[in-house]
């Protein structure tokens, strides 16, 4: 892993198509501007991890047959 320091207004280049600029630093907060090709997905890591863990949970819970029974008997009007 590479660790390096940057000041406000300075930029990092990753390969030849990704640029990350430090826009603002305020205490613990850093605001970054990212320029990347459109096909590169950029996510906040914790959001991605949360979606992963929710998918795992959703997949696991499907095996509770009791819940499936409830699904079967569900009518749209039940939702309220």
């Amino acid at each position, binding site marked *: 892993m590479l660790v390096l320091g940057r000041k406000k207004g300075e930029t990092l280049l990753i390969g030849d198509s990704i640029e990350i600029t430090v826009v603002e630093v305020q205490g613990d907060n850093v605001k970054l501007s990212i320029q990347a090709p459109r096909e590169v*997905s950029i996510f906040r890591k914790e959001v991605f991890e949360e979606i*992963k863990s929710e998918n795992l949970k959703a997949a696991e819970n499907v095996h509770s047959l009791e819940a499936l029974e409830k*699904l079967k008997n569900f009518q749209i009007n039940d939702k309220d």
Partner: protein
Amino acid sequence: MQTNSALFGELEYEEQDIVYFPAGIPAFENEHRFIIIPGEEGTPFFFLQSLGKPELCLIITQPFIFFPNYTIEINDEDQKMLDCQGDKEKLLIYVVLTIPEDFKQSTANLLAPIIINHEKRIGMQYIAVNSKYNTRHYIFAQSEQEIAATAQEG
């Protein structure tokens, strides 16, 4: 064709039933081929069954039934990935449900909907970068006590 499902046992499907997920879905990145099985008639639920992993079957629903005001904006790049040429009519939106033992506390992941181009049979779990939603929205109205109880359970 036939596949095995941990939930349904042996399942018959046709080539044209397959939805291809180029990127898989988060936590199951290697699963690319799925079929969608409608739930019991009259219910709004569907099953997203992986063809490669019999035990992987997610329960999904159409969000607008439970969340009439739900909106989702799909960026250009992902629209391209879904090959919909700007035609939203081609897209079906589902959300993944997490169903705990207490069915009333079921939640929907509105942050990352499953979007499918039903013509081209291409799908993805879409992650909006700045979304007002999270991964756990109750699908049934909750009383305040119930919300408090859930909060305590963590």
